[in-house]
Structures are given as structure tokens and as C-alpha cells.
């Protein structure tokens, strides 16, 4: 026989003005299982809480119902009061007599009766409540950051500066990402490398950061606070300990005509190479696909010239395992190549380039040392046409979204071009100019007004080569009544859409995080949890979520780092015990779960695992579902799906909910 205490609050007059609180308490006293019931003016006040604590002790109460305001308001208060009196806080339930009753109904018999019903429902529920203890999950105080672009660099540094160890994994031979490729950055036009490279060096030298370049995450197991990541260290064919980074090998390598990734194909590199002069680490790797020795079996020139004997042709890929408590995914994006656009030359015309290629042309460290020279013949283009929204905002191209950064970088490109080629003419075809951001609109105005960039509002239908070899851009000017315009161009720059990296889907599946139809990773909540994923302990930053500019990328990176740091600053993770549990019962059944595992797809958090029940000899008797309490968020979808009712959820169990529903309808 349970001994429930019922405490009806008047909330000043907020409840008692329309509900006869004394009658509710009286009716509660008559309910089955209720040992004590009373009403009081302010139950949440200290004397009110004292009243509850005292009643718990005096009447040995084993459950409490407080009829007051919404549980969303004072449930923690009353549960704490119960705990102080030695009652498990989860044996306290709140009957919402204010928001759901007194405030929404007129004074009268029906309102008081409804209050009694609500109390009755919760009395029946609380009679079936179980004492619960918060779940504690140990935390490994180390983070894994996947992707060494500016987002990864920022996140790694922020976490490391808080005193936690960080593993930073980058798939290319150097960290730096797209930002290292950029010339100047909008809206201040400061040099990208000048602001980035010091941070790259800081990463390499930070005592708390372990950097793995030319490495990829192979698999991830575990859950928040307790991940185990296997990382593939791709063979660099260069012993990093012996290599001094002198660079002799790269000058001697006979294979010199390989289109360089860092220069977006506008420059060349050797087979043994450092991606760019400021690379971190500044040590070369051998690109096996282009190396004469790996492809044809002879050469070994680099080995011959290496003064320290660092070349190791037979080095295998290595696999290492790292235990981490949190993961930040910062794998970035890529831009569509020109070949995606048949109407703009389909990659046929050498002088139709992408925005990122233009960055390399404008960069002092680029293939032209910062001079704008067109790829076909190396001459300085006198007329350049920039086309915005190439692919973006075009459902026909499968990219209905706005790539966000192009308006700004196109303005920057046109501006840089005008700064470098004083007698040049630049034209920008655009749909809308989206320049929301600090000093962004001013920047675009400057391009138009001071640098005399010709902005034409309209789409470009075609780029074609005239008989004389000149490129012609045909579009419309919608501000001139959709008049067709044709502009000659020496060079055309396409602001091609920012899209997800090719491996994004595969990585998302390895990490069990969700992604959108465009393969960008999905936030747990687009507004309120913008750097978290649905998998607890895995965070996102930068352009792997959607195209982002540098300030936004850095902001999300620091945001994600703050989330990681707050997680790693705890020894144990304490979580509400309102989670799903798979039942256990006596042999020979062991659990009424039959192991169909159809519930696994019902869980938004991948919290349902397989568990083998074994006998003393270690033989598997049965394989059943197991809910990982570290991952379960307590939605209960699996509970209503389970046919045999083998899964139940603590705090909202089948027995509790059934009793509450029945009790609400109990009276005549």
C-alpha cells in the first residue's frame, strides 16, 4: 500500500481564485494510496517546501504529488525538496493546476472537478513511479577533430588552450584547407595566409595537439565521453623523423608536370611534394599515383639525393586507435568544377575558371605570383566577366540553396582585378546581391562605386567561343527589361556552388550522424543547437554543415570547442535517468525482447545496440536489444514500437501512463 502525499498550492490566488483548493486536497485525501493531503498558499516558498519535507518524514511518504504551476516551472524545485527529505526525487510528480486549469477556466464546479481529476491521474501515476538515480558516464578527456581547415584549426586550438588534449586529423599532407588557398579575404582585404599560417604553426607546436596529416578516420565506435576512433595514417613514403624538410627531393624529382591541387590545376607539382611553401608539417609525401618508382618500378631519384636517408618506399599504411570523449567534424566543402556547366564551356575553354582558381591567380604565392594572367596564353585579361550563382539557387541543377559566400567573393575578385589591372573592365552577372554581414554591404558598394565594377542583374545563358577565338558571354539584363546582352571576355570566372565533399555521406555513416539531401551534415537543432549533431558528443563546425564564410566558420568552430570543453571539464557525465530500458527476467526467458532489432531504426540516436546473453560457459543463449543510456535521449519512440513491450521508458513507463489515463476517466 503506497503512502502518497498530495500538496495543493494556492499560488497566492492564481489557483485558488477559480479552483477550490481545500476541496481538491480533501478529495485527494480520500484517494486510494494517499496518506496525507493538504493545501497551502505558496507551496514553492521556503515554508511551503518545509511543509512537504516535514510531511515526508512524519508520514513516511513514498510518493509526492504537488498540485501547482506547470512542471516546466517548479518540478526541479519540488523534486529537490523531496530529495532533501530523503525521498527519491523521481517519486515526485507535478499536477499542473495553474497553466492547465485555474488560468484557463472560469471559477466553478467543473474547474474544481478537473483539478481533482488531474491530481487523481498523477496520484495513480506516482504510485507506479520507481526511484531512479542519475546516469553517470565517465568521460575520456581528449577530443578528436576531423579536418584541418580553419574550422578544425580553430576548434583544436580552443580546446587545447583549455588544457585538453586534441587529436587533429587531416586527409591532405598539410593543414590549412581552403583558407590557405585564398588571396585576400573580404571585407577587409587582409591576406589570408598572413592571418592563417601563424595559427597553423601554433597547431603544430601546441603541446596538447597531436597532428596526423595524410590521415583519415577509418571507423568510430562508442558513445559520448567514450569514443574509440581508428585512424588510417596513409603511407607518406617519407620518414618524418629523419626528414629535415630541406626540399632537395622535390627539386630533383623528374616528374614535374603534375597538376597541383593547391593551385587548382593552374600550376604543377612533382610526385614527391609539399603542397605549398608554408605547409604544416613542411615535409614532403610521395604521391604514389604519379611516382615513377611506384608506377614503373624504377627511378628512386629522391632516395639517392636525400641527405638523411628519409625516403621509405616500403612504408605501409598504419592504423592507430585513439580513445576520445568528443568529436568535432570540420571536413569543409568543395566547389563545383567548371565541367559541371555545359552551357558555360563544360571545362573546354581554358579561360573559363572557377572562383577558387581566380583566388590562386590573385594570390602572391600562386602560379602567377599574384598577377592576373589568363591560363590559356598567360596574357593579362582586359575584360573579365564574373558569373554569380553558378549552380546555386538552381533547382534544375539540384542545388536549390544559396551558397552564401559567392556574392562576397565575387565582389572581392572584381575589386582585386581592378586593383591589379587598372585599365581592365570587369562585369558581374548576378541574381541578387546578398551582402548581409558586418561591413559586407559597404564592401560591395565600394566595388561598384569606387572600383567601377559593372554589375548586371541577370542570368547568363551561354558562354561560347566566337570564330576569332574570343569568349562571348550572352545573358540578359533584367533591369533593362530583360534585354539580351552579349559581352566579350578575355576570361570568365564562375562563382560555382559550394557543395559537400565527396566522402561526406560515408563519413556521416561512420559517425552515425545525419546529413541533409545535399550531404551536408545536419545540426541537432538548426537554431538552438547549431553545432551539435543528433549523436551526443559529436559536434560540427564550418562548411561541412553548409557553405559558410570565414567569420561564421570560426564562430561555429569556437562554439563547437566550447561545447567540447564543457563536456571534457566533467569527470562524469550526469544525465537524467529518463531513458529507455530493455527488460530482464528470470531464465529461461532472460528478456522478453526477441531480438528482431526492428526498433533500431526507430531510434534517432543510434542508442539501441545488440547484447549477447551468455551462460556461465560463455555460450550465447540469446541476443537482445540493449539501450545505451549514454546515448538515449528518452523520446520513447522505441517503446511504443516494441511489439512484446520489452522496452520501457523510465519516468513514462507503460504502467504509469496506463494508470494515469485510466485514473483521469475514473469518476462518474
Amino acid at each position, binding site marked *: 500500500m503506497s503512502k502518497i502525499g498530495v500538496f495543493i498550492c494556492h499560488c497566492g490566488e492564481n489557483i485558488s481564485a477559480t479552483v477550490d483548493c481545500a476541496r481538491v486536497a480533501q478529495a485527494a485525501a480520500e484517494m486510494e494510496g494517499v496518506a496525507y493531503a493538504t493545501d497551502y498558499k505558496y507551496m514553492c516558498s521556503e515554508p511551503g517546501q518545509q511543509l512537504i519535507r516535514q510531511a515526508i518524514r512524519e508520514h513516511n511518504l513514498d510518493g509526492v504529488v504537488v498540485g501547482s504551476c506547470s512542471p516546466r516551472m517548479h518540478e526541479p524545485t519540488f523534486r529537490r525538496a523531496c530529495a532533501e527529505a530523503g525521498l527519491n526525487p523521481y517519486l515526485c510528480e507535478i499536477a*499542473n493546476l495553474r*497553466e492547465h486549469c485555474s*488560468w484557463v477556466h472560469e471559477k466553478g464546479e467543473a474547474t474544481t472537478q478537473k483539478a481533482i*481529476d488531474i491530481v487523481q491521474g498523477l496520484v495513480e501515476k506516482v504510485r507506479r513511479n520507481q526511484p531512479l538515480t542519475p546516469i553517470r558516464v565517465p568521460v575520456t578527456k581528449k577530443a578528436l577533430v576531423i579536418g584541418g581547415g580553419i574550422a578544425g584549426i580553430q576548434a583544436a586550438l580552443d580546446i587545447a588552450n583549455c588544457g585538453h588534449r586534441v587529436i587533429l586529423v587531416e586527409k591532405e599532407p598539410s593543414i590549412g584547407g581552403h583558407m590557405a588557398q585564398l588571396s585576400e579575404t573580404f571585407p577587409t582585404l587582409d591576406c589570408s595566409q598572413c592571418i592563417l599560417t601563424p595559427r597553423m604553426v601554433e597547431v603544430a607546436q601546441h603541446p596538447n595537439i597531436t597532428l596526423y596529416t595524410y590521415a583519415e578516420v577509418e571507423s568510430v565506435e562508442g558513445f559520448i565521453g567514450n569514443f574509440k576512433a581508428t585512424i588510417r595514417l596513409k603511407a607518406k613514403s617519407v620518414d618524418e623523423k629523419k626528414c629535415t624538410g630541406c626540399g632537395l627531393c622535390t627539386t630533383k624529382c623528374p616528374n614535374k608536370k603534375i597538376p597541383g591541387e593547391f593551385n587548382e590545376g593552374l600550376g604543377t607539382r612533382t610526385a614527391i611534394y609539399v603542397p605549398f611553401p608554408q605547409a604544416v608539417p613542411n615535409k614532403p609525401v610521395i604521391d604514389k599515383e604519379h611516382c615513377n618508382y611506384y608506377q614503373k618500378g624504377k627511378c628512386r631519384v629522391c632516395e639517392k639525393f636525400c641527405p638523411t636517408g628519409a625516403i621509405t618506399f616500403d612504408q605501409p599504411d598504419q592504423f592507430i586507435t585513439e580513445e576520445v570523449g568528443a568529436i568535432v567534424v570540420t571536413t569543409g566543402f568543395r566547389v563545383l568544377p567548371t565541367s559541371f556547366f555545359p552551357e558555360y564551356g563544360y571545362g573546354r575553354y581554358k579561360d573559363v575558371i572557377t572562383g577558387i582558381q581566380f583566388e590562386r591567380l590573385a594570390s602572391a604565392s600562386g602560379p602567377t605570383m599574384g598577377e592576373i594572367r589568363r591560363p590559356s596564353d598567360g596574357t593579362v585579361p582586359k575584360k573579365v566577366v564574373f558569373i554569380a550563382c553558378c549552380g546555386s539557387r538552381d533547382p534544375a541543377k539540384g542545388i536549390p540553396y544559396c551558397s552564401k559566400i559567392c556574392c562576397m567573393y565575387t565582389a572581392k575578385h572584381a575589386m582585386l582585378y581592378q586593383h591589379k589591372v587598372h585599365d581592365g573592365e570587369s562585369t558581374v552577372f548576378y541574381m541578387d546581391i546578398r551582402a548581409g554581414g558586418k561591413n559586407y554591404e559597404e564592401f560591395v558598394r565600394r566595388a561598384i562605386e569606387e572600383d567601377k565594377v559593372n554589375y548586371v542583374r541577370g542570368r547568363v545563358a551561354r558562354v561560347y567561343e566566337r570564330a576569332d577565338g574570343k569568349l562571348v558571354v550572352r545573358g540578359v539584363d533584367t533591369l533593362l527589361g530583360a534585354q539580351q546582352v552579349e559581352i566579350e571576355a578575355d576570361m570568365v570566372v564562375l562563382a560555382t556552388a559550394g557543395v559537400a565533399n565527396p566522402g561526406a555521406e560515408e563519413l556521416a555513416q561512420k559517425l552515425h550522424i545525419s546529413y541533409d539531401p545535399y550531404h551536408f551534415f545536419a545540426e541537432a537543432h538548426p537554431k538552438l543547437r547549431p553545432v551539435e549533431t*543528433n549523436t551526443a558528443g559529436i559536434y560540427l563546425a564550418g562548411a561541412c554543415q553548409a557553405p559558410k564564410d570565414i567569420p561564421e566558420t570560426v564562430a561555429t568552430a569556437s562554439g563547437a570547442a566550447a561545447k567540447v570543453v564543457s563536456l571534457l571539464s566533467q569527470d562524469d557525465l550526469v544525465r537524467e535517468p*529518463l531513458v529507455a530500458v530493455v527488460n530482464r527476467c528470470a531464465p529461461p526467458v532472460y528478456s522478453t525482447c526477441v531480438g528482431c532489432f526492428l526498433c533500431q531504426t526507430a531510434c534517432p540516436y543510434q542508442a539501441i545496440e545488440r547484447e549477447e546473453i551468455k551462460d556461465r560457459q560463455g555460450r550465447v543463449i540469446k541476443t537482445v536489444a540493449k539501450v545505451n543510456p549514454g546515448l538515449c535521449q528518452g*523520446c520513447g*519512440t522505441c517503446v511504443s514500437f516494441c511489439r512484446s513491450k520489452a522496452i520501457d521508458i523510465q519516468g*513514462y513507463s507503460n504502467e504509469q501512463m496506463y494508470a494515469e*489515463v485510466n485514473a483521469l476517466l475514473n469518476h462518474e
Partner: protein
Amino acid sequence: MDENKAAFEPRIIAFVCNWCTYAGADLTGTSRIKYATNVEIVRFPCTGRIDFMLLLKAFAAGADGIIVSGCHPNDCHYTSGNFHARRRWIVFRGLLDFLGIDVRRIHYYWVSAAEGAKWAEVVNQTVAEIRELGPYTEYKKVANYIEETEAAHE
């Protein structure tokens, strides 16, 4: 209970999720918007948790109508609980209708935490419609085992 239609006060149980509709109904309260007293709210963590059996049990226990309400699509606190619930209700509703159970008595809504006024409308509209339909006597009749047995003996 008086089965006279004019005096008929329907009993309605609302199955709502904690994050959207429960909070929305709290907002109705803080906004002091008045509505009918006929609806009793049961709080669930998520619409995904609402077992179809609980709906049947509410009818068996004497409910004349049911409200099921949660977060709008894409707004679920748990990302997809409401999507799972929606599928469940599509299938369940079809089956109940085929069995001749009065599906007009189960009202489904999306009510967000910001829609306090909508909650009041939802309640009033449901109460009005169920009042029009009258008590769910045919279900109550089969729910009452003893009466049913006696009727069989007569």
C-alpha cells in the same frame, strides 16, 4: 451519466508531447485564454512515445474523444519522433476506420510551444465536435464486460 445531448459534457483525453504542445498549453495559461474544461492533458516526452493502445484504453475507460498533439514536422525535440508518430497514426487510423471505430473522435494536431491561442481553439473545437457526436456509447457498451454478458443472456 446523463445521456441527454444538451446536458452532455464530453470527456476528452489529450495525449501531448512535453516540448511543443504541453508547453503550448502552458502558454495558453500564461496568456489567460479561456477554454472548455472537458479536456485532461497527459504529458508524454514525445508523440513518438504515444502508444496506440493508450488511445484505445482511453476509449475503453470512457473517453468520448481524444486529442493527440505534438511538434510540427521538422520541429521535434527528438528530430523524428513526430514523423514516426505520423506514420503510426496513418496506419492506425485506416485500421480503426475499417473496423468501424469512430475515427472522427480522435483529433490530431500539431501545436507548437508558441501556439497558445491555437491550443485553446483546438480544445474548444474538439469539444464542440465531440459534443455534436454525443457520447461514445457504442464503444462504452462493449467495454462493459458485465453489462455485455448480461445483455447476451437476455
